[in-house]
């Protein structure tokens, strides 16, 4: 911060007037305009921060890796140390993508599941297991992302904090009664209609290794409990993520800039940047 020159923050001028930038529990909601990336980069570089990015490419989903990694190289945590953790059942199909300085890729071979719902849900188990065994010693923060996406604009250290979730782009303006939480009391993911802060997307969450470990372990245990009781939550791991973040509030919330689908939702003026977006895919073909 020595000698850094930047515009003065004004105590009486909000950075955004059109959106909520702070949750009621005082966690920042990250939108373009709310942060100065130069200050944040300096703060995180001083800590020599290393960020881990977990991504699962099971069965046919390996086809998404190339674009995911290439765009991550352009936009994700540029200037900081990054380790990509690619979980796959097809290590030979992991593409060779040239990586910038201070960035490396680790392939973690794991089993697949027949049902796509099981592939999705078992990510929680695998992340929790590897967090304890490995991630704790290698990175400071973990970002857990879906692979069938690409980075289209800056995604940087502004997202990093103890625990973060991302607003689902389909529900950021909905009432909580309309959130697709699990509504059957029999499930561990159950949330009653008068509760809930936001509807978070299962495709992008993270935090410190310890907090991600706690979250993924809790979600996995909840899913095991549900299975024993013969129930599967309506949106699988996403339902359990939402339950967890309701009672363990995130310390930062990412706006839908960080999770968008341009085909479905266009580009509304409230989104100053579209940073991490869905890649068009044929659901039937890919989930077989």
């Amino acid at each position, binding site marked *: *911060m020595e000698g850094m*020159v930047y515009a003065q923050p004004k*105590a*009486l001028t909000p950075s955004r007037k059109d959106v909520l930038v702070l949750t009621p529990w005082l966690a920042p909601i990250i939108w373009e305009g709310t942060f100065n990336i130069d200050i944040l980069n300096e703060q995180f570089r001083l800590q020599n921060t290393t960020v881990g990015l977990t991504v699962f490419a099971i069965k046919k989903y390996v086809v998404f890796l190339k674009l995911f990694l290439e765009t991550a190289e352009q936009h994700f945590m540029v200037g900081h140390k990054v380790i990509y953790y690619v979980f796959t059942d097809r290590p030979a199909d992991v593409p060779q993508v040239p990586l910038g300085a201070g960035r490396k890729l680790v392939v973690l071979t794991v089993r697949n599941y027949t049902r796509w719902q099981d592939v999705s849900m078992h990510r929680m188990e695998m992340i929790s297991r590897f967090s304890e065994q490995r991630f704790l010693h290698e990175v400071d923060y973990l970002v857990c992302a879906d692979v069938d996406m690409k980075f289209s604009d800056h995604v940087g250290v502004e997202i990093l904090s103890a625990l973060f979730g991302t607003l689902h782009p389909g529900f950021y303006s909905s009432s909580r009664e309309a959130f697709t939480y699990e509504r059957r009391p029999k499930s561990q993911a159950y949330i009653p209609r008068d509760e809930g802060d936001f509807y978070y997307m299962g495709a992008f969450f993270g935090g410190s290794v310890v907090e991600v470990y706690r979250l993924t372990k809790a979600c996995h245990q909840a899913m095991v409990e549900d299975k024993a009781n013969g129930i599967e939550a309506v949106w699988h791991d996403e339902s359990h993520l939402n339950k967890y973040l309701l009672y363990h509030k995130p310390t930062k919330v990412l706006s839908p800039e960080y999770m968008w689908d341009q085909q479905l939702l266009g580009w509304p003026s409230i989104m100053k940047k579209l940073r991490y977006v869905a890649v068009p895919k044929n659901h039937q073909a890919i989930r077989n």
Partner: protein
Amino acid sequence: MYQPLNLTIGVTVFAVGKYTCFIRPFLESAEKFFMRGYQVHYYLFTHDPAAVPKVPLGPGRLLSIIPIQGHSQWEEISMRRMETISKLIAKRAHQEVDYLFCLDVDMVFRNPWGPETLGDLVAAIHPGYFAVSRQQFPYERRQVSAAFVAYNEGDFYYGGAVFGGRVARVYEFTRGCHTAILADKANGIMAAWQEESHLNRRFIWHKPSTVLSPEYLWDDRKPQPPSLKLIRFSTVDKDTSWLRS
């Protein structure tokens, strides 16, 4: 969400010379408004322990009276606070509290001050400068001082009357300020607003994780602007020249 953590919040406050008259209103109002429902430990530094009034404290709330040297010059008393706080932390506070706030004594709590204020490193915006450009902030502007801030630097002007955070962070912060104060002393210079100048210099480089609005540090002589919904901690009306004589 903070209550289940069973936290203890420390408060340092200095009452030297005639400032002992502020102890009762400070403590009585703190008992009413400061961190209700939490364990609180007041560390009251004074040259005259006998002058400390008996103020009843709620359950889980303690007062430690710590004798310190008086000084003929009020500036000297003010400047030594950083050193005194860091020594307190090293000696005992690091074991006794989780968070520590360092507050001026000539103030009263008028509304709740709660866990919303807890953070790793906490600063409060000075009530006189929140609507003003950084060029007008009363930073120390002489380059020879360790508290020097250039005209194109600065985020907010923070008040020296309120700062705090996790006890380890407050230790680093007060040590850093004290080192800078000593550097200035060796060069025969005293910063424009004493330790407030050094505090402000340090907060540019080591940015606070939590910034309190002027609700938490108000000057009752100012008219209350519409942006200020609630005043929680503010000055006691006083005759400064008499107090400092």
